[in-house]
């Protein structure tokens, strides 16, 4: 919790125009009257949305990853790896590419469907891929085979996006590529009214079904024998996952590895697999990790900005590899 607050303050401070710590403190405690008005505008319009976006994206993706790992009974599942983010990307691409707008992110560019429309399209794309992979999971029991299926679905969806790109204007293509590398910088204050409530609703839904999901750790047949309405709970978990992945992808692009790495971090910290505890803990850790990743991506002290996925990949890929090596038993099962 303290770490989260520190990371939040740090994320407010850094940027192309760094803000000194005392001003951040005054700003957060509501005593910022004597500060420079330019700095206040910078904080309110740029640094604050960026930090809030990081909180929503990190908390949301961590919970989405946790839900998927539970749904698939697979420690390597997460929205990015299994192509759910790609599904969301397709939704975004369909609703936005082809319109001539030039705003910083796709979601903010208000395509022909509007901001909510783009978000909804992203969520539907995410839900479609999730349902597809879940269906494939009925036949593919092996943990690793399912990943291959997810990667393949992601590839097909990526190809569909490429078709759309082929007919798009060069400026849009450049923007799409930048967006697809992941970024926390593209959101405005107004976007928060979509991003934050949807993410929060998804996390709350996850928390609500967490006692039932705990029982589903034993498998769906056992869960049914303990009175869990399996189909309902699975649907709720899918909707929460798709809503979160959809909205986060719409605003930040497909962000890699947070969804897989953070839940495992939470399990290590908690030492338990009780989802009533893991959902809030993953959300907290996810927010803190994403804030730190966002800070690192701004390369404090320089003018450059790294794509967010560069940072999350460096952090997350080793976690995936370590999991694969440690769980040799899972590969065969």
């Amino acid at each position, binding site marked *: 919790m303290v770490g989260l607050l520190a990371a939040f303050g740090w994320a407010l401070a850094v940027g192309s125009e760094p803000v000194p710590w005392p001003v951040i403190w005054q700003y957060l405690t509501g005593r910022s009257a004597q500060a420079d008005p330019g700095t206040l505008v910078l904080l309110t319009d740029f640094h604050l949305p960026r930090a809030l976006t990081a909180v929503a994206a990190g908390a949301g993706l961590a919970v989405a990853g946790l839900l998927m790992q539970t749904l698939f009974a697979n420690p390597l599942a997460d929205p990015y790896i299994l192509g759910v983010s790609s599904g969301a990307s397709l939704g975004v691409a369909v609703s936005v590419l082809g319109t001539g707008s030039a705003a910083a992110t796709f979601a903010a560019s208000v395509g022909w469907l509007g901001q909510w429309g783009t978000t909804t399209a992203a969520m539907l794309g995410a839900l479609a891929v999730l349902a597809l992979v879940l269906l494939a999971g009925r036949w593919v029991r092996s943990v690793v085979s399912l990943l291959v299926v997810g990667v393949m679905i992601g590839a097909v969806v990526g190809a569909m996006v490429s078709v759309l790109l082929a007919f798009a204007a060069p400026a849009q293509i450049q923007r799409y590529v930048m967006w697809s590398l992941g970024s926390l910088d593209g959101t405005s204050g107004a976007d928060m009214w979509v991003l934050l409530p949807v993410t929060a609703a998804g996390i709350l839904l996850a928390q609500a079904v967490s*006692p039932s999901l705990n029982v589903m*750790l034993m*498998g769906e047949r056992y869960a*049914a*024998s*303990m*009175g*869990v309405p399996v189909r309902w709970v699975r649907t709720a978990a899918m909707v929460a996952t798709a809503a979160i992945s959809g909205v986060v992808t719409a605003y930040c692009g497909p962000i890699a590895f947070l969804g897989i790495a953070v839940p495992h971090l939470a399990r290590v910290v908690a030492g338990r697999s009780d989802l*009533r505890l893991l959902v809030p803990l993953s959300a907290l850790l996810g927010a803190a990790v994403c804030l730190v990743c966002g800070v690192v991506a701004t390369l404090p002290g320089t003018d450059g900005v790294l794509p967010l996925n560069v940072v999350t990949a460096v952090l997350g890929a080793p976690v995936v590899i370590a999991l694969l090596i440690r769980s040799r038993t*899972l590969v065969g099962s």
Partner: protein
Amino acid sequence: MSLSLDALGVGYQRSPILPPVTATAAAGRLTVLLGPNGSGKSTLLRTVAGLQPALGGAVRLSTAGAEPVDVLGMGVRDRARRVAVVLTDRFDGALLTGGDLVALGRHPHLRVGGRLRDADRTAIRSALSAMHADELADRKLVEMSDGQRQRVLVARALAQEPALLLLDEPSAFLDAPSRIDLLAVLADVAAERQIPVLVSTHDVEAAIRTGQDGWLIDPAAGELGELVTGTVAELSRAAIGRAFDTDRVRFDPGDVSFRLRSSPLDGRSSPERHG
């Protein structure tokens, strides 16, 4: 409290694998469900548990002085408060302790939010001690032997405080002494809680030594096989031999075990070898 199946249709997608099953299992007694591999024991058990749609008929639980209730007609949560099962399904319980697992059995009794109350904790403790597994409450599942894990899995079902306990091949992966031991503990549980306990197993010898009543699926009788019921002593006299005997192996009711029809020596000196 007793279980009675009334012309229960067992099978998949309208094609039955057994003739309609009519049988009873008494409270306080261990009923063993016997039959060769692939004879439909698991399917019958899952149908009784309501985990697989019945093709007809009813599964009734009756208490003294009360109307029998049809288990299949009720919602999943109501059913889970009356019927608990131990399945063969495997799962990854990496971080779960024995206590965590047993606590999951309280799920049908919990309110929204899933917080455990005192009554739940009492049920968990008494389930663990009924299975002589008190010391496993804090041990991780992955650190347990097969026998210990099986005890905790049964305790999980007991924590549901069921009026009927069903177990599918709970002793399949255990060594011979543990198998007898587990079945004997289940017989105690049936007597202490005064509920019917129905256990499927293909381990005839252990079942006859520990069980009281038996349901035997004889796949050779009739078109779809036949379910024969009785005490295990009655079944072992003739019915078990009919269901399990092969050209080379026969069941000996005298010392409750399977024997080769001819001695090993006779088998080796077959005419082909000499000719």
